[in-house]
């Protein structure tokens, strides 16, 4: 018995022990999946101890949908110290007062953030509408990229892929993968649908990125419903794999996924290409922020600083295939590729960088960037967007469903009735059988 008690005591201790950990030695990072060179995490722990003399252990968690991350913080009050949301979520978090201002006070440690951040990214962050707050005080960019079309050149011509309408090409039925991201799909399709209006100056691309009107939502929904029968899948992250296996020929996706797929495609002999369609497209940014419920703000600030150090940037870019927000010449030099045509990246790396041999999938030319815009938070209209998407994606009900359900309901009702009848007759028969029946059991 004593043993049992000591076991119970041990269990109780375990339970209590689970409740409290010293949070100043723990840094909870919440990042997109596949979005870092994981060896960097351990290196940060060492670096942090070197710089501050304090020990820290990183708990690294990943998400693959912005909204999951946001609701964990907004509704679940989870104590992540540093997270990496996308532009429009940073906007929403700013508006909803969910972020702590960043500190640039690193003592002896160099400030890698401000030394390296590209002016282009800084300007884009200025455009984030955070009410009276400037996003640059609350967020530091991590990666950025474009949304576009990844396609298999064996089955799709460059000409076909240069418009968003390629996803409505019936010849590609069952070979089209669409990123399962309502906002990205809406933004591109609305640009496609309004291309005339944009050309003729009736509306600007930026205006279309906010909620405009019900008709626009309905138009995108109608368009996507035409696309739906052709779609092979709504992918969160697996589209790139489907493309390299030639299961998909067209993928509406992000440039980072495209880079990964193109590289992988080369090793297996699949010619994949990526294009930002002519009607215009969105540019996206993910940035590090410190949520309101963070418990280890100091380490979080150091983490953001560390993530901006050029050599760390280069390693993360190498592993993930995404493009860093870093405008440091060191980073630019690291990605110069002699096989590429020169591109004008002066908007990103500074005025002297007008002809650098960089991969245009990673760093689009200045002319391409001119066709781009940036997504915004829809505030209270976000629900309409989600409803539109569910209307497109969900609703697999058809007449068979209804027939089967009706038949099933009838059968269930019949069963209930027969059960009740049986129970009645059993009750009356029990009177006669009495105790004998029980004994036999």
């Amino acid at each position, binding site marked *: 018995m004593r043993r049992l008690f000591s076991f119970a005591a041990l269990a109780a201790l375990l339970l209590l022990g689970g409740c409290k950990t010293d949070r100043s030695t723990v840094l909870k990072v919440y990042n997109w999946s596949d979005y870092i060179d994981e060896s960097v995490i351990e290196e940060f722990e060492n670096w942090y101890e070197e710089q501050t003399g304090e020990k820290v252990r990183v708990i690294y968690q990943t998400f693959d949908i912005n909204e999951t991350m946001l609701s964990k913080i907004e509704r679940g009050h989870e104590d992540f110290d540093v997270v990496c949301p996308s532009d429009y979520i940073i906007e929403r978090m700013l508006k909803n007062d969910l972020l702590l201002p960043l500190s640039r006070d690193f003592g002896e440690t160099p400030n890698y953030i401000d030394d390296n951040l590209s002016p282009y990214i800084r300007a884009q962050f200025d455009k984030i509408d955070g009410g009276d707050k400037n996003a640059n005080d609350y967020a530091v960019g991590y990666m950025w990229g474009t949304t576009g079309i990844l396609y298999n050149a064996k089955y799709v011509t460059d000409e076909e892929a240069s418009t968003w309408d390629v996803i409505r090409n019936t010849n590609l039925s069952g070979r089209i993968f669409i990123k399962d991201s309502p906002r990205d799909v809406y933004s591109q399709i609305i640009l496609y649908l309004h291309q005339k209006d944009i050309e003729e100056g009736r509306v600007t691309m930026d205006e279309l990125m906010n909620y405009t009107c019900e008709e626009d939502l309905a138009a995108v929904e109608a368009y996507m419903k035409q696309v739906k029968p052709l779609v092979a899948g709504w992918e969160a992250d697996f589209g790139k794999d489907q493309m390299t*296996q030639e299961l998909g020929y067209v993928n509406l996706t992000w440039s980072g996924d495209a880079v990964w797929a193109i590289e992988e495609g080369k090793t297996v002999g699949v010619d994949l290409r990526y294009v930002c369609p002519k009607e215009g497209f969105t540019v996206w940014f993910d940035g590090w922020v410190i949520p309101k419920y963070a418990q280890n703000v100091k380490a979080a600030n150091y983490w953001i600083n560390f993530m901006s150090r050029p050599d760390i940037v280069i390693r993360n870019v190498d592993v993930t295939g995404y493009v860093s927000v870093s405008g440091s010449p060191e980073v630019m030099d690291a990605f110069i590729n002699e096989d590429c045509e020169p591109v004008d990246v002066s908007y990103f790396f500074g005025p002297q960088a007008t002809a650098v041999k960089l991969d245009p999938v990673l760093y689009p030319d200045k002319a391409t960037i001119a066709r781009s815009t940036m997504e915004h938070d829809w505030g209270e209209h976000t629900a309409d967007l989600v409803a539109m998407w569910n209307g497109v994606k969900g609703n697999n009900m058809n007449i068979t469903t209804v027939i089967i359900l009706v038949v099933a309901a009838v059968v269930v009702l019949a069963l209930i009735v027969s059960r009740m009848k049986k129970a009645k007759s059993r009750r009356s028969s029990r009177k006669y059988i009495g105790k004998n029946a029980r004994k036999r059991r």
Partner: protein
Amino acid sequence: MKKFFARAFLALILLLLYAPLIFIAISSFTESRVLGNWTGFSTKLYGNLFSGSMQGAAGSLMTAVYNTLIIALIAALVATLLGTLAAIGIFYSRGRAKNAVMFLNNIPMVNPDVITGVSLFLLFVFLGITQGYVSVILAHITFCTPYVVLNVLPKLHQMNSNTYEAALDLGATPGQALRKVMIPQLLPGMLTGFILSFTMSLDDFAVTFFTRGTIGLETLSTYIYTDARKGGLTPELRPLMTIIFIVVFALLVIINIRQERAAKKKALIK
């Protein structure tokens, strides 16, 4: 002729059931990153699995395997102890109390995993228990113990309860009587319960998914889930699954041969 059709039908169903498993086993002997491509025979994946030289994703695979085993072991052990004690108690209690416990005991078995997972998640949130190792183990004990109870109860029915009384009459303390007389007779049921619990804990995905919290705890199932959502599965999973398959196969064959032998013995005695 009839026999031929019966056999053919069984063979067809077996093919259906085993095709994906055989598919995994075969592709565990090639290095191709993508499941389904054959790039020549190789045992490199097995080598990677055992040399511990894996890096990055595959390295965290081994951590996940380690977590899975620890959780399964602790959960199965506690479930076996708790379940055996409970079975003895249930066996000796009567009437409403017995029915009530049996009713509660059946709930985790009838509930789908998602419901068990969600309900336990809400419990841990409600009690303010940080979710992680402890919550996952508690959750696993919850769905394992009923099976232990159900495996030990029949052994109690078979047991001659007089032997326990006799031991007490002959001066044994209750503890001694329990250890020397009762436990040996219950052992086969406990063992089956333990192995069942262990395999169920190994296999669980939904309950772990809801109760593991945000400290970054990964078991094999959640690892596969995260991995699969990204598209490519870590190739080392293929040899791992093949090995697990063989181990489970061996375990189940052992249990069943034991049971069949025991049944035959019983038949002989009769």
